[in-house]
């Protein structure tokens, strides 16, 4: 075995590191939308809210492969939106690293929104009103009162969707394909499992262990922040 760190080789670390990077980028991309969606679902009622919620949660229950396929048809070079993006901006999404980020973002979005929404629902909307009455404009009151009060839920949502993204497989495979820049943990495990030979198998199990460990740590962190948020809200 080549030189290793924590039992993982440089090649293993590459898969871990790529997963972390893609998942972080996906979280950064979806966070503003996640906060907005969580706030709107917690505070506003509007016609079609139930439908919006269902659409939002669809990636949670739909086969990831189907989600990836839909993304491919929407954003592929000949897709509805993809052809337009390619024509006007020369932007290619499908089958690139961007597709991996987008697929991971879409798959983690329901989890992120759920945690953020719960956090907003756990805070008293009248505190926002008090801030307005004291002279704060809507965005000011939101940023200085509502968001800080929901911060533990927002962090829980970030960690949860990040953890979900580390293990993304189906949607990424369909939308981004297997390429050097998409060989994240789960995809790497899948590839290794189809290779004959003890060396591949050994490597696969190392990655499996790394995935499990990362997922465990992320879940524990998200639970920690969610609990802190509940305690904060009830204080």
């Amino acid at each position, binding site marked *: 075995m080549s030189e290793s760190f924590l039992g993982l080789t440089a090649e293993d670390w590459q898969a871990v590191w790529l997963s972390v990077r893609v998942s972080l980028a996906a979280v950064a991309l979806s966070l503003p939308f996640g906060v907005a969606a969580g706030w709107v679902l917690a505070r506003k009622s509007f016609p079609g809210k139930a439908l919006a919620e269902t659409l939002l949660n669809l990636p949670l229950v739909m086969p990831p492969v189907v989600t990836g396929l839909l993304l491919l048809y929407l954003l592929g070079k000949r897709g509805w939106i993809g052809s337009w993006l390619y024509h006007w901006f020369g932007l290619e999404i499908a089958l690139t690293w961007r597709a991996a980020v987008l697929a991971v973002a879409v798959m983690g979005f329901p989890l992120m929104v759920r945690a953020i929404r719960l956090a907003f629902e756990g805070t*008293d909307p*009248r*505190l926002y*009103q*008090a*801030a*307005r*009455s*004291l*002279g*704060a*404009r809507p965005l*000011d*009151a939101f940023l*200085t*009162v509502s968001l*800080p*009060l929901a911060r533990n839920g927002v962090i829980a949502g970030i960690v949860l969707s990040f953890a979900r993204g580390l293990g993304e497989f189906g949607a990424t495979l369909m939308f981004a394909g297997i390429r050097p820049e998409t060989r994240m943990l789960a995809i790497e495990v899948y590839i290794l499992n189809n290779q004959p030979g003890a060396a591949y198998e050994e490597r696969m199990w190392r990655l499996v262990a790394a995935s499990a460990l990362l997922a465990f740590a992320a879940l524990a962190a998200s639970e920690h922040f969610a609990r802190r948020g509940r305690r*904060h809200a009830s*204080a």
Partner: protein
Amino acid sequence: MPLLEFSCQLQYPSGFRAEPAFVTEAPVTALFGPSGSGKTSILSMIAGLRRPDAGFIRLGARLLFDSRTGANLPPEKRRVGYVFQDHLLFPHLDVRGNLLYGWRRRARAARAVDFDKVVRVLELADLLKRLPQSLSGGQRQRVALGRGLLCGPELLLLDEPLSSVDDELKQRVLDYIRRVLEEWRVPTLYVTHNPAEARQMAGWVVRIDQGRVSAAGRPEQVLTEV
């Protein structure tokens, strides 16, 4: 010109219909009536946190709301210091942060109320670094009062300020409120269901019953039959 003119209609989801209307020129006006008579709703409408179905609200020369012209100032532009019954102190800010929340959002030139003086009069110096959760009911009430005062209001709204204070401390909190009103002379609407409190604090009493004004006048006129 009257200090405050209020005439609004509000339909509750329960079917209850409130149509309070009154005018006041007194420095301190008590809104007096049993609980559930719609006193707090009047404060919410004045503060812009609840939109009346129809009517108008005028504070001095400023029209805060008028359903006929569609005028409706947002809460942050009404310059009303609302001291909520349950205080609604910001749990993530310490006492200083709470006190300064409105003060910081006021234009520098318009900051008529001095922070140090508020801290002195309300005896808050030892509490500035504390979080609201660690305060007693009476302490919270003082912080809420200071916060409402420091936003530089043209009208102070006090909603049952003694409701969360232990009996033996009620008179002390009243003394604080009276000191504040004497010191800064901010016109005040004082909501209470207690006739003794109304008599003690207000120069004008508006009696609310089931969403309507049933009497208005000097305390001795309105409160005699209670």
